[in-house]
């Protein structure tokens, strides 16, 4: 307490040692999030899911093969035909809901939970520039989402290899893709999923900066996603459905045909990119002008 105050020498009037670009580094934010039980549970569950699926296949009743000629039955039969198929199956059952929830959680809870803890105002008073705070938060949210996606795929691949062996990928159209090439295809599926999930990420992030209730942000994003999926089932909407953010969600199945069909995925990626850009722009616009009263 006896030290004299530092002589002010910085141009912008900041304290000695302060640089806006050094505040809340990505590594710090990663640590802040990693220590949360929520993060650990989600990542742990994604590791567990392929194992659960494997056990379900292993110990579930085998059923009557001839009675499972329908689409889902065919899928289940194919899932056991090798690591690649098992991985595709795992992604297929996770993509439409589980991964959306996970991504919404990582990106939707990140700002809102700080607001509800009251720590947001102290970060802003550091000061972490608002834009930087959002940027780092989003980046880390996306990073964890990517880790989740890759983790799920990787574990599914490992479990699948151990359980069903390393066999060519059999597709719904009856094609058979060599296992090595199938790894590339699956990487493509993961990449496409990552792009489409940007919509969920953007939406959740937007809600996250608008509310102090972390659950509200996550739930709201998932809810809107479900509504969009439901509307997508209404064929009466015709070509309007192409404007729904979830319309191209399953276009990654085009990677599993021979030859690969890219056009739907290009449209899907475009749609996802535009939606994400709109949501994130709104998030930035809102947060940079917001009165932080949490």
């Amino acid at each position: 307490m006896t030290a004299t105050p530092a002589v002010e020498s910085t141009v912008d009037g900041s304290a000695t040692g302060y640089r806006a670009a050094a505040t809340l580094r990505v590594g710090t934010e990663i640590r802040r999030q990693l220590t949360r039980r929520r993060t650990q549970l989600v990542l742990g569950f994604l590791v567990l899911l392929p194992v659960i699926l494997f056990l379900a296949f292993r110990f579930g009743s085998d059923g009557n093969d001839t009675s499972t000629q329908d689409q889902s039955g065919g899928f289940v039969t194919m899932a056991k035909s090798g690591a690649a198929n098992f991985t595709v199956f795992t992604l297929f059952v996770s993509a439409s809901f589980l991964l959306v929830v996970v991504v919404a959680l990582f990106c939707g809870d990140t700002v809102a939970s700080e607001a509800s803890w009251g720590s947001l105002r102290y970060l802003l008073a550091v000061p972490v520039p608002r834009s930087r705070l959002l940027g780092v938060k989003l980046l880390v949210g996306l990073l964890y989402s990517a880790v989740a996606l890759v983790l799920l795929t990787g574990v599914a691949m490992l479990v699948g290899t151990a359980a069903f062996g390393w066999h060519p990928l059999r597709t719904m159209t009856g094609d058979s893709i060599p296992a090595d090439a199938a790894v590339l295809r699956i990487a493509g599926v993961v990449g496409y999923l990552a792009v489409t999930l940007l919509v969920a990420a953007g939406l959740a992030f937007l809600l996250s900066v608008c509310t102090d209730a972390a659950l509200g942000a996550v739930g709201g994003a998932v809810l809107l996603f479900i509504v969009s999926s439901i509307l997508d089932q209404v064929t009466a909407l015709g070509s309007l459905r192409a404007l729904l953010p979830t319309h191209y969600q399953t276009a990654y199945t085009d990677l599993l045909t021979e030859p690969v069909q890219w056009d739907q995925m290009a449209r899907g990626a475009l749609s996802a990119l535009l939606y994400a850009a709109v949501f994130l722009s709104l998030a930035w616009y809102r947060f940079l002008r917001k009165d932080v009263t949490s």
Partner: protein
Amino acid sequence: MLRVLPRRRRDQVVAAVVVLLLAAGLGVWFAVRAPAGYRVENRVITVRTGPHRDRPVPLDTTLYVPDTTPAPAVLLAHGFGGTKASVASDAKDLAGRGYVVLTWTAEGFGRSGGQIHLNSPDWEVTDASRLVDWLGHRPEVRRDGADDPRVAAVGGSYGGALALLLAAQDRRVDAIVPQITWNDLGRALFPESSGAPATDGVLKRAWLGALFADGLGGSGTAARAVPGCGRFAADVCAMYRQVAASGRATPAALALLRRSSPAPVLSRIHAPTLLVQGLADTLFPLSEADANARGITHAPVQVAWFSGGHDGGTGSAADHDRVRFLTAQWLDHYLRGGAAPADAFTYSRIIGYDRYDATVRTTAFSVRGGYPGLTAAGTTVPLSGPPQRIANPPDGTPAAVSTLPGAGFAGVSPATEVPGQAAGFQSGTLDRPVDLSGAPRVRVTAPVGAVLFAKLYDVGPDGRQTLVGGQAAPFRVARAGPTTVTLPGMVYRFQSGHRIRLVVDTADQAYAGPREPATYTVAVVSGLTVPAVAGTPLTDPAGIWYWVLLVATVVVVLAVVAALLTARVRRRRRQRAVVAEHADTPLVVAGLRKTYKDGFVAVRGTDFTVHRGQVVGLLGPNGAGKTTSLRMLLGLIRPTAGEILVFGHRVTAGAPVLSRIGSLVEGPGFLPHLTGLDNLRLYWRATGRPADTAGLDEVLDIADLGDAVHRPVRTYSHGMKQRLAIAQAMLGLPELLVLDEPTDGLDPPQIAEMRRVLQRYATDGRSVLVSSHLLAEVEQTCTHVVVMRRGELVASGPVADIIGDSPSVLVSVSDVDTAEPLLRKLSGISSVARADGGFVVELADLPRRDLVSALVSAGVGVDRVVPRRRLEDAFLALLERGES
């Protein structure tokens, strides 16, 4: 210009401009994208037609005239059973592309007069020729010469054959696009797959019945028509009755059908021809277009296959686009001199089913150098299976099902077999995919006279079988020995792991086979020849999406970069501005005002200053605007008016100068799952400043949490969190410490300790701003005080000035009524006011003891004399006013 506007207004203006620009952009987009306008004229054109060109037949027509004329014309013909309305959407599309489009209802249909002659050159074809005459006189239509309009003929099925026949009969036609149509109607309706003439063909009964029914409709015409013949011409109806009854084609019937066929006249066609044929078409399979393509020798010909047809409709969305694109390109080139179409044959293969759009999904291929025909080189797949004895059922019942006319097989093939009536011959399991594009061939032996149906199945690893193309190839064994059966052209890929199965059937529901029961022995004596063309996958026309995606990505990236750069420049400019006279003043608040969106005014014009070395108390009851002021001071809330200078720098959200402030606002905020120590460490790490400048140990001493710093914060009591928060605010020993109700939750000894800490903190040039609603706390801790009430500044100054010895005293007396006149008479008193139980007396120069002695000597008992302090007066007064 924007600079003069208040910030809020400026944001609104920017938002409005953005919205306007977007709207304008969308408007332009739709204006550019929207098809050019056209007008529609409905009229009945009566043409002189018939063998002698003397029979008037009224035709119901619609003319679509584009905005820009004269323009080339398109005759757009409809399919069998339709009217001009069935092609309206195609007509609008072409009109939008700038063509004059004439659609008409063919004679014998709809509101047109006449009878159905099945595209007879004397009737329907002449009708069309008359319509070309009519177009030749229209000023809207571009002309090649007198009575010679620039015109193309486009149509599908019935309309496609008309286009071919018209081009053969009328040299004025400049281009044609016949789609899913026939070459020889006799052979199409009486197919025979081993090369025998149509007299030996097997009647496609289901299709013939369906087509004939299409010609029976039309109200108000029954009276003048022969019963059961509808609007068919007598010769056509008689032919139908004969062949339908016998199941065999007579030479006379075949001659009539041949008259209605392009086959004999193809060599006379000089108009460039784009032949579009469907892969899902059991009525007019690929072989019909193949024969047309080979027959047209005096004009350029291009062929395209798509996934639709009489069974499959428009096929996949991609194919629909491709056919439209090819048609437009063909017309543009030959009618308007547009870019030449590539010399490429294109086709597509079904790769899946789109659940959402309820159509097949396809991938398209292109073959350079043009149409390769149906019998391209390919592979031979060995088939195995013993000779099998199969039964021909009486009257063809029960029969296998290959396809239901027009029902399509896009999703699932409805194919079934009848046990004992089908012989199967199977390949081994394929070790690599086998591509089929063309007409497969196989050699079969069977008794002479037998009528059989050959089909191809794809057998999956699980035993499920799919009828390839939905097609069955009928053949009649004409002589002993092997018969070569050519199956209809198809495009298919047999996957590795699958098997190919050839089935030879005795009866098929769609065909009229022999009625006598019989038993045949059938054997396969060759492998299956599978033709394949090597096509390169096409990405167009959906390729535009890749570019759009690329452009969008680049735009988004550029926008982000631009936003970052401008933000940085603006920030820098703002942050470096400094008010020199306040450069050494920790805090100057001037005219600060905050109005929330709902109209609530939290702070209304507050001014105060914090100098170095001061401990300033911000005193006021709850709701006085203290916390709002502190939030504005930290850049968390944007002031509506006024400004805050910290060391001469204007405070905005995230202003770097805030790094010289340590704060506790509205309670602590920690990550509950982390320990107190980790919270402080991570917080300091988040500031990005060197760890050795944090003074972590010193502030931990102040927090005095002992071992509790190693426990998660969520286990802390309110007071512990409060102490940790004060410690966090002191990290790095900031020059200005801002504490909002710091003693909240602390017990008395801790409060006393905190007082000492704060006073010590401000001894070496640092300053402290403490807000509180407790007078005593401010009085004991602060050097200066700012009193607020309802957002307004009530008083400010050094505590000593405000609290110090006050000239006013509260005097409680035993007899108020006696005392009052006495007091008023005393000199050296400024004012006297009654208060409960006594008076508030403001002394000018009279000592208090003289006041007391004056009262006592007058016989008034004095209970107590208490100095009144201004701060308390002010504070109490404002509290009272606040309550009233």
